[in-house]
């Protein structure tokens, strides 16, 4: 027993040192458990609170520290990478009494894609909402206990894909020939999250152009793969607008935000999801305040390192600028 425990401890210390020497650091997983804590916080939120829903742009670009610094209140961040906000918004409207302000990040490729709950843009949100309903006291206890461990050991990480370091992720990355073509380029993790779900782009993504290039390749792959899908523009817009109306009827406010994108990705978006065909009709039908980065000098002119998200520093600037506009327009107070 002594040999077993000592041997395992020595192995784990060596394992931890190995990953730290490869630039892995202790950090939190951006997982279902973290999300549901913040979803639960909505139940306690009041008229003065703000909730953010959306995809990764609302997640990267709206910095909670900066927002709190400017307004004195910290928004609840419920945006999810690679996801449409439709079902998260639907949940806030239909399953809570919240009547504060909901900031909805709009990334056209995701927002207008589909209403099918099991489709990739909705699947993660729907699963998290189900987990929110189903989670047990044991789940809550496990997560509480895992936080200090996640924050102390680099090797404790539930990340999947090329940057995953748990045994399953390491095995999944082994390639011995290719029996089935897998055109998806390696997708690296390029953000860090804290316990309040404030997500920031890593310094490496902002400074290492070769690394940022690997993320760009993934966006190009998604553009290619998504080109065969026809957006469900009418259905998604109507679904959203109906919920907006319900929410406004009970005194809530909705603010639409279009965060910056640049380069080839922006060109692609302009071709496939032109503003005049998607964003403008949505704003018109929803009849809510809407902020498109291209309409404001202080919200535009950023250089997204991988075309789709702002660096941490630029996200601070963008957030401060957006909050000031919202204050000026009377939607926020400081």
């Amino acid at each position, binding site marked *: *027993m002594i040999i077993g425990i000592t*041997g395992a401890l020595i192995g*784990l210390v060596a394992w931890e040192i190995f990953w730290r020497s490869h630039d892995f650091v202790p950090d939190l997983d951006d997982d279902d458990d973290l999300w549901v804590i913040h979803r639960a916080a909505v139940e306690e939120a009041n008229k003065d609170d703000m909730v953010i829903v959306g995809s990764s742009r609302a997640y990267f670009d709206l910095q909670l520290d900066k927002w709190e610094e400017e307004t004195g209140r910290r928004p609840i961040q419920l945006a999810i990478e690679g996801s449409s906000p439709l079902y998260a918004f639907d949940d806030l409207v239909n399953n809570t009494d919240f009547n504060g302000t909901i900031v909805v990040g709009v990334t056209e490729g995701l927002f207008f894609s589909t209403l099918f709950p099991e489709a990739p843009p909705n699947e993660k949100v729907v699963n998290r909402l189900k987990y929110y309903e189903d989670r*047990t006291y*044991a789940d809550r206890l496990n997560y509480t206990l895992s936080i200090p461990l996640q924050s102390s050991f680099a090797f404790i990480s539930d990340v999947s894909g090329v940057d995953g370091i748990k045994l*399953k992720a390491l*095995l999944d990355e082994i390639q011995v020939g290719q*029996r*089935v073509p897998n055109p998806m380029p390696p997708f690296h993790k390029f953000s860090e999250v804290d316990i309040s779900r404030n997500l920031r782009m890593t310094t490496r993504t902002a400074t290492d152009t070769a690394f940022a290039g690997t993320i760009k390749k993934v966006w190009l792959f998604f553009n290619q793969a998504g080109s065969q899908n026809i957006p469900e523009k009418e259905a998604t817009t109507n679904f959203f607008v109906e919920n907006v109306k319900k929410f406004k009827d009970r005194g809530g406010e909705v603010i639409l935000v279009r965060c910056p994108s640049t380069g080839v990705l922006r060109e692609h978006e302009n071709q496939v999801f032109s503003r005049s065909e998607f964003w403008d009709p949505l704003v018109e039908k929803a009849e809510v305040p809407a902020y498109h980065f291209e309409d404001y000098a202080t919200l535009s002119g950023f250089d997204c390192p991988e075309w789709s998200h702002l660096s941490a520093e630029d996200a601070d600037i963008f957030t401060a600028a957006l909050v000031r506009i919202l204050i000026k327009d009377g939607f926020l107070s400081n």
Partner: protein
Amino acid sequence: MLFNSLGFILFLGLVLFLYYTGILSWTNRKRMLLLASYLFYGLWNPPLVILLWISTIVDWTAGNKLAVEKNSGRRKLWLLLSMLTNLGFLAFFKYGNFLLENFTAGVNALGMTYEPQPMDIILPMGISFYTFQTMSYTIDMYYQRIKPARTFLDFALYVTFFPQLVAGPIVRAKDLISQFYDEKKATANQFMWGSFLLTIGLFQKVVLADTLLSGTADAVFGAAKVLNGLDAWIGTLAFSGQIFFDFAGYSTCAIGIALMLGIILPDNFKYPYAAIGFSDLWRRWHISLSTWLRDYLYIPLGGNKNGITRMYVALILTMLLGGLWHGAAWTFVVWGALHGLYLVIERFLRSKVRLKINPINGIFLALLTYACVNITWVFFRAREFETAINMISSMFFINNDGIKLLQYFDIFKVTVVISLLFICHYLMRNSSLKELSLKTPSWLFGVGWAIMLFLIAISQGSGQQFIYFQF
């Protein structure tokens, strides 16, 4: 609460501390174990502890009445009360929706339009396990095979003992209740062996089932496409390994944890994939359920005492109900029916052909048995018949144009793990882990233990639920 979770490590640490610290008398330690067991269960869904309480109170009362009641009619009524309560819980919570769906389908088939709302029923974790366990007490009391539990505390702890509460082994009253009568304390060797079994169980679940096999099985059975024969076989083999490591892992953890408390639980698995034939398989797989079904279903149905036809009918019925015990779906019934059919064919062949098992035909027959078991696993794992039929067609290479899904490394990984699993089971089929450990040098034993602990730690993740919890 899951054994493979941080919460359980804390829970077990506290239980062991209170158990061994010496501040509690034996009765108070049993009370502590009972409260801990309710907490263990309640942390999943607190209100459903009430079902446990009802089962406990009804069967305690019925057991006490059966101990003194002489009138055979009244004895039957007390037994009936216990059966109705426990089977009623099962019927409502586990089979409610299934019965409603089939009723609806039947009514609609008769031309009447009936569309009821599906019932939103939560399946209480492990309900099939604890209801079968507590029913065995009243049935044994009815047949006067056992004496009643001495105290309510002993009986309540028997129904609720946390190591085996939600996924077995299903322990008989005679094997467990009497252990609660006298003070129990694990010896140093028992404690160490219990810890080792807990480690092996977690290794089976976390590393072998969840890390090495579940991904391939999930990908194949979730593909919703007609697959290539090789992919279908690899996915099914992966599931055969996954379900074994998942369930045997749970049982091994349960036995280990109980042993750390000085309580001995029976083995639930004895290298089942080395079984030669299906009678042998059911003496090795989920032993506590198969013996339950034998004693409380197969034998009362006539067993092998009333002629061959009656025996075949009893076998098929027992396995059909055994299939339904696993889940409220027709795919589980087919799984049970196939096992029943295998047993009938085997009995028939044994009556016609005398075969002496030697190492060469033994391994061939074990492989044949394992291959046939894999066919049944397809129905067990597939959520719909269409998936199962497609998988079976692919496995018999009927779908020549089925798509390829798995990478070479997935195929290699599953092949290696399953081959090792089969070889280990075959080599160990007449032995035990305990015997093997006694022959192993202590340093090698320690190194193996260290490697398992290390691999468990680096496989960590979201703590996946055990498959058998849903049954």
